[in-house]
């Protein structure tokens, strides 16, 4: 091969790199390992991480432990799905394209909106993109954010908007932990509210969209836990204009927080302001149905600095996992698993009401997560849970210090009754 390219040595191929800039020394990285050694090294690192595979897991706060049917991983392990890329060449990417079209359809059904894109990085960046979309549509400069938004989402939103001369104001929570309604000024591009909220509370969004629309703004609903969608009124039915969030709960491993699956849905009248890839139906030259990437003139590879977003590679394989998960669970299964989350969380809440020393911080409806006040302090309560082999939830001190010693506890379909009983006893601790 060297002869064909007219070189004596492979190193000569790099002579366009000016000599003083060439790297000649060995790189100071670890020496090569065989496959077996790599497996041992990584297995040793994996062994040093607390994880949910053994059960007894009550930590959620945006990343949720759910049952994943075996067929999900079996199917996404197929190399045709794993080792393909963005479906630029439609004729040999129909597997990916049809999957995205099916995802778009199911996500519209779940969120009650008309158009869904082919994924964003995560729920946080999806929320930032939703805000940017609303700013473009309304040509306004102010965003109003509920204090019920996940604090990390709020931080990512701030990062994305920094430098753009956008004002971000906060809608505080009322004593029930729900977004306090306030007059919406007529310079507000959008109001962003999370459902269920970071603290687990389910909001009654009745009249919210009407108030925002009357001021000429848009309502953005960030879905806090995707698995609540089958049981909660669709955000689109409440009048939301843009729905965004995180669909990790649909068959995607928690994976230390990523890769997950951001999503964004909207109304057809705003489709040209949407970020990200869209798949549409069309016909081939022989009149057969097929699917293609479409409305690409919104995107960076065509529109460059005038694109609606810089996103290129998104979370394709996670979208595939979620589409398979939703197909397996189906209309009834998905409703049932959501209902089990609700029932188990309600059982836990009932046990807390009955147990001296612990109390629910907020009244009112929740889905699978809620705030609990503990008798002493949160780290000690979590340590007592750990003695029982349980991961008891998130210490709320950092995010909502004003609540006193409190935990955010998540109860999914994976939690067993005996584990819930032990958790409540452990959290109550000395007060028992």
């Amino acid at each position: 091969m060297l002869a064909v390219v007219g070189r004596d040595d492979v190193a000569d191929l790099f002579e366009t790199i000016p000599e003083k800039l060439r790297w000649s020394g060995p790189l100071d990285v670890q020496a090569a390992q065989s496959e077996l050694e790599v497996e041992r090294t990584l297995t040793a690192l994996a062994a040093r991480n607390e994880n949910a595979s053994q059960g007894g897991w009550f930590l959620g706060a945006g990343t949720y432990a759910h049952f994943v049917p075996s067929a999900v991983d079996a199917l996404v392990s197929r190399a045709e799905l794993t080792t393909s890329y963005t479906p630029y060449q439609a004729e040999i990417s129909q597997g990916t394209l049809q999957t995205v079209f099916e995802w778009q359809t199911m996500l519209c059904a779940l969120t009650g909106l008309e158009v869904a894109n082919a994924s964003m990085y995560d729920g946080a960046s999806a929320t930032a993109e939703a805000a940017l979309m609303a700013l473009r549509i309304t040509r306004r400069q102010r965003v109003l954010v509920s204090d019920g938004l996940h604090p990390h989402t709020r931080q990512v939103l701030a990062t994305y908007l920094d430098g753009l001369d956008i004002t971000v104001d906060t809608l505080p929570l009322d004593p029930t932990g729900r977004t306090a309604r306030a007059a919406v000024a007529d310079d507000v591009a959008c109001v962003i509210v999370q459902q269920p909220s970071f603290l687990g509370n389910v909001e009654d969004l009745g009249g919210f969209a009407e108030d925002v629309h009357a001021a000429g703004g848009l309502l953005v609903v960030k879905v806090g836990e995707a698995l609540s969608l089958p049981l909660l009124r669709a955000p689109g039915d409440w009048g939301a204009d843009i729905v965004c969030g995180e669909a990790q709960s649909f068959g995607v491993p928690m994976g230390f927080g990523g890769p997950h699956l951001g999503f964004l849905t909207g109304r057809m009248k705003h489709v040209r302001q949407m970020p990200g890839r869209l798949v549409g139906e069309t016909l081939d030259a022989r009149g057969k149905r097929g699917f293609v990437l479409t409305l690409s003139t919104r995107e960076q590879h065509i529109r460059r600095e005038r694109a609606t977003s810089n996103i290129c590679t998104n979370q394709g394989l996670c979208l595939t996992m979620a589409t398979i998960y939703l197909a397996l669970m189906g209309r009834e299964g998905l409703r049932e698993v959501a209902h089990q989350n609700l029932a188990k969380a309600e059982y836990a809440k009932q046990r807390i009401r009955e147990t001296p020393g612990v109390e629910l911080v907020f009244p009112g409806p929740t889905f699978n997560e809620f705030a609990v006040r503990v008798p002493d302090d949160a780290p000690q309560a979590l340590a007592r849970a750990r003695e029982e082999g349980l991961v008891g939830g998130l210490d709320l001190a950092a995010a909502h210090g004003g609540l006193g010693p409190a935990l955010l506890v998540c109860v999914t379909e994976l939690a067993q009754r005996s584990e819930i009983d032990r958790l409540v006893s452990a959290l109550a601790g000395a007060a028992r």
Partner: protein
Amino acid sequence: MSNATQGFAYEEALLFELSRPGRRGVDLPALDVPDVDAKQLLGEAFRAEPADLPQLSEVDVVRHFTRLSTWNAAVDLGLYPLGSCTMKYNPKINERVARLPGFAWAHPHSPAERVQGLLQLCHELERSLAEISGMDRVSLQPAAGAQGELAGIMMIRAYHEHRGERRHKVLIPDSAHGTNPASAALNGYDVVSVPSGSDGLLHPEAVEEVMADDVAALMITNPNTLGLFETHIGRICEIVHSGGGLVYGDGANLNALLGRGRPGDLGIDVMHFNLHKTFSTPHGGGGPGSGPVGVKSILEPFLPVPVVAQAEDGSLEWDEDRPLTIGRLHGNHGNVGMLVRAHAYILSLGPEGLRRCADMAVLNANYLLARLRGAFHVPYDGAVMHECVLSDRELAATGVTTLDVAKRLIDHGYHPPTIYFPLVVAGALMIEPTESESREGLDRFVETLLDIVREAHEEPEKVRSAPNRTRLARLDETRAARKPVLRWQPEDV
């Protein structure tokens, strides 16, 4: 309807068309707590009717997605020479280790002391990437290359503002990826396009001409999208630096430089890595990617939070207390599953293997160019790095275009190269073979391309109507855009 078009090339309807009432693919354990009345609990927020999802059995779903998968081209099926995407083979060990419960079932909010293995992995991967690139510090948070670009641009803004300067322009060569201008604009910068020279390279004079005290940065891809090493990089960086600007390096083409050149040594101040390109994490039909961002020490204070830090006792922790940070860019810690795979890859290769990767990738690209020169027009001829760019100019008389050649390659079992990019070449075919291909594999690909050129002269219609051997013929993109159908709906809604 027949099951298949020919042999085992299956037909498959949409999930919604296959749905039958009452079917489901999963059963759940019986509820072990008292049942509840959801409607009563949730009040106005209760959803009266379940979302209209399909109803299918497990075998229905398994066959559906297995059949769909057979309609995709993939690296594991054959050469996938998509330029600038580095479609290299992804070792299977990566997949195995990423699925270990200690990674796959770990939670981002677990206290740092209980996930030391993951922090250790992040710490080691950061150090490997810093060493490979010649940068001082790396953040693993960005979820893809474009988010890495955004992080870089934000750090550049923060750097200037910290020095009390407001600069509002970013210089970008006309051969750059679309994400570069899009990322700069997303952060509020005006983009100034810088023309490449007649040799396809960026010239110091062109940069000098537009460099000014309101320029925040130059974004450069090296090797560039023509596959050429930007030989004037040293002088260009000097010009930008002496004007008070910084240089951003798009790491999309880093595969060509592994062990042969380090962006940090070239004068780059901040860059991103595409782990799904250079470091063999799967492309997944469009992600997830992972786009860590590396910086020189002058930009370290501005890195996204949190960063991994070493405590006095040697344990690792998350450091959020960084006053000059641009803030948080990801809801958690980035696409960690991809970090696990990339770490496994770097461990597998070691220093020698990394260099060999670049050597073979560059050799393969030059070999393709040498064999195809003559049959195709080479707009910017010379020694290339990891990819080469050809054009359809020699075919003009036949009426066959780059698009036709691409579609005809499909008939022969090849994923086409990147086409019509970079924009500086009319009718571009951008071919990146990667190091994964053997000489025999490259020879077969060359023969196929030469056959197509012959065909273009002798039977152009055969090329222009391609693909002819696929389940679907050429798809009508105009129709899709004119009247967008973006979801399935029951008849006549």
